[in-house]
C-alpha cells in the first residue's frame, strides 16, 4: 500500500488533536460538575444534572469528540485511532492532578509512560490497512 500523502497525514494529525482535546476537556468539565454529587439513576436526576453549566459544556465537547472521531474513522483504522487517541488518558491523569488536585500514584505515572511509548509505536504504523469506498473521487 502506498504511503499516505502529506495532506492525509496533516489532516490526521489535526483531527487527532481535536479528538483528544475534546475528550480530555469534556471529561474534566463533567468531573467538575459531578464531583461529590451522587447521581441517582432516574430521568429527573439526570435532567437536573444537565442544567449544570459545567455538565452542559462537558456534553457539548463530548459531542464534538464523537463527530470528530467518526470523521477520523472514515479514513483511519480503528486499531490505529484507538491507541493513538489514548494519549488522552495521559492528559486526563495530568489534568486530574493539576486542576482537580487528585492523587496520582507512582504506578499511574508508570502507566502514563507505557501509554506514551505505545502511542509512539502505533503512530508509526500505516493509517489504514483495509480498502474502503471512495467518495468525491481523487487518488488514494
Amino acid at each position: 500500500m502506498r504511503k499516505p500523502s502529506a495532506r492525509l497525514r496533516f489532516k490526521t494529525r489535526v483531527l487527532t488533536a481535536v479528538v483528544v482535546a475534546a475528550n480530555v476537556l469534556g471529561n474534566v468539565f463533567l468531573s467538575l460538575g459531578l464531583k461529590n454529587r451522587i447521581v441517582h439513576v432516574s430521568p429527573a436526576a439526570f435532567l437536573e444534572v444537565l442544567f449544570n453549566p459545567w455538565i452542559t459544556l462537558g456534553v457539548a465537547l463530548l459531542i464534538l469528540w464523537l463527530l470528530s472521531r467518526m470523521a477520523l474513522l472514515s479514513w483511519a483504522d480503528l486499531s490505529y485511532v484507538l491507541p493513538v487517541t489514548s494519549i488522552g488518558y495521559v492528559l486526563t491523569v495530568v489534568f486530574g492532578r493539576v486542576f482537580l488536585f487528585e492523587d496520582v500514584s507512582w504506578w499511574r505515572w508508570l502507566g502514563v509512560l507505557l501509554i506514551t511509548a505505545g502511542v509512539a509505536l502505533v503512530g508509526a504504523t500505516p493509517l489504514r490497512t483495509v480498502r474502503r469506498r471512495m467518495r468525491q473521487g481523487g487518488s488514494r
Partner: protein
Amino acid sequence: MKWALVAVIAAATTAAELMQSHAMKHHGEIRDFRPGALGGVLARLVRNRWVLASVALLAVSFCAFLALLSEADLSFAVPATALSYVLETVFAKYLLKERVSPRRGLGAALVAVGVFLVAL
C-alpha cells in the same frame, strides 16, 4: 458498584465503536471539510442504522460513566473504561479485517498495560 458500572461501560463502548468504525469504513474518507459538505455527511450518517445503534450504545455507556464519575475520581473512572481497549483491537483484526502488524500489536499492548496501571 464501581466495577459493575465499568463492565457496562466496557461492553457498550466496544460494541458501539466497532459499529461506528464499520459504518465509517463503508461511508468512505471524508475529504471536504466545508460546513455544507459536513452537513451532508451528517445527514447521511443519521440515517445509517449502524451509526444509530452505536449512538444508542454510547448513550448507555455515557449514563453509566456519569454515574461512575459521581462516586469515583476522574483518574480512576476514565482509565477503567478502557477495558474495552483490548477487546476492540482484537475485534478490529477479526471482524473489521484490519492488519494489526507486530509493531501496532506491541504498541496497543503497551497502551493496554499502561491503561491498566493508570486504573490501579
